[in-house]
C-alpha cells in the first residue's frame, strides 16, 4: 500500500531525522521543506516541467488515463503553468475534506536552476507546497492549465477529476 509514497516523501522531505522514544521507535521522516530557491523568483528561466503522479494508494483501486510522468517543453504551456502556480493565494486549513493521498509533483528544468519542486493535492486540503508560503488553489483553473499543458484535456471531463483518477476509490471533490 502506498509503496510509491516512500520515494515521494523522501523526495519531498530530504533526509529523514530520528528522535528519541515515545510513540514508536523508528526514524521519523521529516516534513516537507521548501528548497533553497523557489520557483516564483526564477520563473522566467524555466524551460520545461516534469509532472509526476505520486502516492496512489493501492488499496483504493484508482486508475488514470494518462502516464504517471509527463514532460512539458512548450514554452507557452510552461509559462502558463508557472504563472498559474505563482498566482495562487496563500492560506491553509485546519481540518479538511478527506484526502485520497494522491499528489502531483512538478519539477522544473533546467536542473541547474536547483528550483524546489512543487506538490499539488487534487483532494483534501487542496494544498500547493514548495512555493515558499503555503498556498492552495482556489478554483479548478490550475488543473485546467496543467491539463492543457500536458495535452490530457478531454471534452466533458473536469480536469480536477482527470487528475483524481477513476475507479472504486477515486474522489472528485469539486
Amino acid at each position: 500500500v502506498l509503496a510509491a509514497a516512500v520515494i515521494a516523501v523522501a523526495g519531498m522531505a530530504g533526509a529523514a531525522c530520528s528522535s528519541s522514544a515515545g510513540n514508536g521507535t523508528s526514524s521519523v521522516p521529516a516534513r516537507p521543506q521548501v528548497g533553497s530557491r523557489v520557483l516564483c523568483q526564477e520563473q522566467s528561466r524555466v524551460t520545461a516541467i516534469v509532472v509526476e503522479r505520486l502516492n496512489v494508494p493501492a488499496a483504493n483501486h484508482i486508475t488514470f488515463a494518462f502516464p504517471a510522468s509527463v514532460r512539458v517543453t512548450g514554452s507557452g504551456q510552461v509559462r502558463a503553468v508557472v504563472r498559474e502556480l505563482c498566482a495562487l493565494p496563500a492560506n491553509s486549513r485546519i481540518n479538511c475534506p478527506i484526502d485520497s493521498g494522491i499528489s502531483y509533483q512538478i519539477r522544473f528544468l533546467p536542473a541547474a536552476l536547483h528550483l524546489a519542486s512543487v506538490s499539488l493535492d487534487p483532494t483534501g486540503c487542496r494544498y500547493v507546497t514548495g512555493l515558499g508560503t503555503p498556498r492552495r488553489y482556489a478554483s479548478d483553473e490550475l488543473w485546467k492549465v496543467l491539463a492543457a499543458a500536458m495535452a490530457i484535456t478531454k471534452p466533458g471531463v473536469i480536469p480536477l477529476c482527470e487528475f483524481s483518477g477513476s475507479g472504486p476509490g477515486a474522489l472528485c471533490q469539486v
Partner: protein
Amino acid sequence: MDIAMKPRARLVTVLSVLGITITAAGFGTPAALGVSPAPHSRPSVSVPVPADCLTSYDPYQATPAFLRHCGDGIYRAQKVAGLPGGGRADVYDVGGVRTVEPVPPQGFDPLTASAAKLAEYGFPPRPAGGQALRTWTFFMSKAHVVPDPGYLVTDKAMEIQAQRTQRPVNVTAYDNPIWAGNMSVSHTYTNVYAYWLEPNIYSSQCSPTAESTWPGLGGYNTGTLVQAGTQVNEPGLGAHQAWYELISGSTNHFIGLPVTATPGGQFITEVDRISGGYNIFVENGYTGASKPVTVSFSPYDGSTAEFIVEDPEGGWASGGPYLSNFRNFEVEDAEASDNGGSVFHGLAYWPHYDDVMVSPADGTTMAYAGGAFNSGDSWYDYQNRCY
C-alpha cells in the same frame, strides 16, 4: 468588551483577493481597518505570521492586544435580537455567513422543551428513542449555555469553486493520509452527533504533533464539509477547545468556541442540517458547559456522515503537524439520522466505510477505528503511529 475588529492580515488579503467584504456593523472591512485592498485580482501573496501566534491559545482568553498582534479576525455581534419565547440571539456576520448564538431564557429546560423551542434555541432535536435518546437526555440534563463573549474569532476564510459531485464508491475501507473513523454512506444524512471521551495526549517521538476529533456531514464525495469538534495543539485555539468549520466550494470558516473539553471526560457535538443552514451544538459533558450556534450556510453534502480523528492541516506529509499520540479513546455513541433527527442509527450501523489513516511514508496504519459494538454506535479509536 471593546475589541477593535482587525482580521488577520492574511485573512484580509485573502478576502480582498476573493472580492469578499466583511460587513459586520461597519467593522472589519479593509477600508475600516486601514488596510488597502489587493490591487489586482490574483496577486502573489506572502504574509508573515508572528511566531508566537503559531502556538495553541484560547482566543477567548487571549487579550485583545494579542489577538490584534496575531491579526485574528474578530467579529462583534451586529445586533441582539429578542426571541419569541424569551431569551435572545446574538447575531453575527462572519465573512457573509450569518451566525446566530441563541441564549435561552433563564429556566429553559431542554428536557421538557417542545421541538420548536429546541430548534429556536439551537439545541439538538429530541430523538424518538433508543441509545440516541439516552445520550441526548444525558447531555441535555447537564447542559448550561456558556455566556456569549460578544464576539467570534476566526483565522480562516477562503473561497473555492464547486462544480459537481460523485457517487460514493463501493469500498469498505478507505486508505488515506488524514482521516480515521467511521463514515456512513448510501443515504442522505441530515443530522450527525458523536459523544466521545476526549483523548488524553501522550508523549511522542514526533514533533510537532496535533489531532482533531469531530463529527460532520460531507467532505468525501465533494469538497463541502460541515464539522464540529475539538482539537489539540493547533494555532489559535486552546488545548481541547471546541470549534466548528464550514467548508464548501465557495467558503471556509473556522470558528473557535468558548467551550473546552476535559481530557478523559465526555464531550458531544452535533451538526444538524436545517433550512438554509445548520444548527451546531457542543457540550462538555463533564462540566455541562454548552454552546448552540445557528449558521446560515446553504452548501450541503449529506451523502456522508462521519466521526473522524484527523491529522490536521493536511497531515505531516503536506507540511502540517504529525499525528498526536492519543493511544486510544472510546467513542461512546456516534449516530446519524436521515430523517431530520427523529430516528438515529450508529454510524457503523448504516452502510459505512472505515477510513483508515495510512502513512504516506510507508503505508503503515497511523490511526483507525476498532470494531464497532452497541449496534454500530460505539467503538474505540486507536493511534498506531505519529507518521
